């Protein structure tokens, strides 16, 4: 009625990926982080399996095995795929980040609309000398996270972003 469907929807190439990869140490970081998470899941699974009555074990067993297999496969694949797909780029006036390992999330914002630039290092990240840089705009929907950068790179990016956004006037809304 008020919507007409297009006669044809051509396939389109996605955006070029952003220029830079994250630090190679991120692979080990993601692997360790994933492993720690998986250990917790396994512990819970075994604990539950231990305590449920035998009747339930019969059908709960296969479910748990499936979950177990999934976590193992995920451990094996996720860090490398994530490393290949996580990319970022800061051009003169825009910041562009791509994340996700099965899905793909591409975020773009002009630096003139940037409000804050935060750097964050978790305890685990510090072991691998990594840092996240989060760039927020006036929209809660659009924070851009440059994950797992080398700390030196993160410091340089933060300084550069702070310098550029500091030149912007107005409330960036």
């Amino acid at each position, binding site marked *: 009625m008020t*919507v007409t469907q297009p006669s044809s929807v051509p396939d389109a190439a996605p*955006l070029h990926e952003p220029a830079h990869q994250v630090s190679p140490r991120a692979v080990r970081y993601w692997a360790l982080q994933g492993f720690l998470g998986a250990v917790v899941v396994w512990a819970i699974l075994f604990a539950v399996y231990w305590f449920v009555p035998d009747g339930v074990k019969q059908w709960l067993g296969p479910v748990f095995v499936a979950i177990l297999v999934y976590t193992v496969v995920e451990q094996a694949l996720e860090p490398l795929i994530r490393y290949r797909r996580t990319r970022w780029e800061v051009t003169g006036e825009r910041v562009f980040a791509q994340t996700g390992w099965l899905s793909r999330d591409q975020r773009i*914002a002009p630096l003139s609309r940037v409000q804050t630039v935060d750097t964050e290092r978790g305890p685990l990240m510090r072991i691998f000398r990594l840092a996240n840089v989060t760039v927020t705009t006036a*929209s809660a929907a659009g924070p851009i996270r440059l994950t797992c950068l080398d700390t030196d790179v993160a410091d340089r990016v933060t300084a550069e972003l702070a310098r550029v956004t500091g030149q912007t006037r107005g409330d960036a809304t």
Partner: protein
Amino acid sequence: MTALPPPTGEPLAPADPGTPPPPPEVGGVQDWQRLSPRMLLVHPVRAIRSMIVPLVLVVFGTTRGDGNSFWFWAAPVFAVLAVLFGVLAWFFTRYRFTEEQLQLRTGVLSRKVVTAPLDRIRSVDLESTPIHRVLGLTKAKVGTGVDDSQIELDGLTRDQASSLRVYLLQRSGGADVDEAEEPRAEGGSGDAAGAGGPRRGEDTELARIDWGWLRYAPFSLSSLVVVAGAVGVLGQFGDDLPLDETEVAQDAWGWVAAQALLVLVAGAIVVVVLGWVVVSTASYVLSWWNLSLVREAGGKIRTTRGLLTTRSQTIEEAKIRGVRMTEQFLLRFVRGAELTALATGVGSDGTTRLLPPAPRRVVQEVGHALLEEDGPLTMTLTGHGPRARRRIHVSRQWGTLTLAGLAAVPTWWLDVGWFATWPWWVPLAVLVGVGLLNVVIAENAWRNLGHALTDRHLVVQTGAVIRTREVLERGGVIGWVVHQGLFQRRLGLADLTATTAAGPERVVAPNIPLGMALDLADAATPGMLQGWRT
């Protein structure tokens, strides 16, 4: 009418409309002001009202004889304390204007100072409850547009409030002139940004309540909640009716009882429908009485409305980045719609209701007047094509499968208690019933889904049960998020999000073919994707 400054109430020479007025007291920082002493009458009324439920409980408890006499005496003491606290709160609440700021000091024990820079003030809302109105008082809420916090001055006199409103918004309107001149986002969105800035001239009325619109009141879903609550209460009484005594139906008088039951059910339905009509009409009248939507000189949008509690909301037009037209399915039957403004940091969730359920034609006209562009609310949109249809249908049916699975576990594997009484076909019934419902919803969602781009606005329509058309100024787009889930990637679809500071801070076009998404983003904000398109 532009008597300044508000806090002192001193008569001043009327300022030329549009010219920035002098600060409240020329060249000086003002003394702290208290709110009107008439608030001292409001506080006891409020205190008693908040104590009324406990008081009634206590009184009932004591008359029944099982009450505690301690509470019988304690309740009045608490009421007195509450009044006393109200007086103290009034005593310790002060505000003042400096040359740059509005400052408010509150708190009896822990003191708090809230400040708002005068040239950042984006909205002034005035609200008077019936108590306020009897005493000639008003509550003013001052919003700065950047964060959600508002400064609340509860207890200005009516004159103070109206001159405060004019003064504050004139100050900020003057400051906004240079802001509009500075370059906005890269990507040429600046050409769209300057529109809606301050303008001079007469007030123009964009809309006024037409009581013919009352016919749309019963089709509003918000009153359904109220009626459902009332039915719930009635249901409590229903328990007392002798409907459970099925043996009654077996004796000679059986058919009489059955007839009575039918009459009772029919009567209940009539009561619910009548109740719905009455409640929805009453609430429509209460909240939208005397609605007028005015574009004031200097680029302000002002709504005034309300029968008992009157509200006046004023937003700087430059902060209104778009509108949203909402048509839920009941309203669609009668060609009705609602209108909401999407503004930056104003109102709850950045949205301000502008029109009640009203004829769609009126909503479109008013919306277009507000957007200063014809078309966004009436134009035909571009749909998202067959693959979007497939995706929407499939993702909808995941919900069906989940529900059926949830029904299957207790029916087929749990033979305990109440679950044991579930017949074997329950999961199948869920599967078919919910499945069909989801087919209808998904098809509707796909038919409603579409987008468009005008010279100045981005238009996105979504929704199945509630169809919403969001119109966002292109200059209000901060950035873009292109999200593709695993299944969307295989179909070449994406969820395109335009991030913005206005309204709910995002406009999402779901399941849009990737090429369309990138074209749309590229066209809406030229240059933003430059170098990354293939």
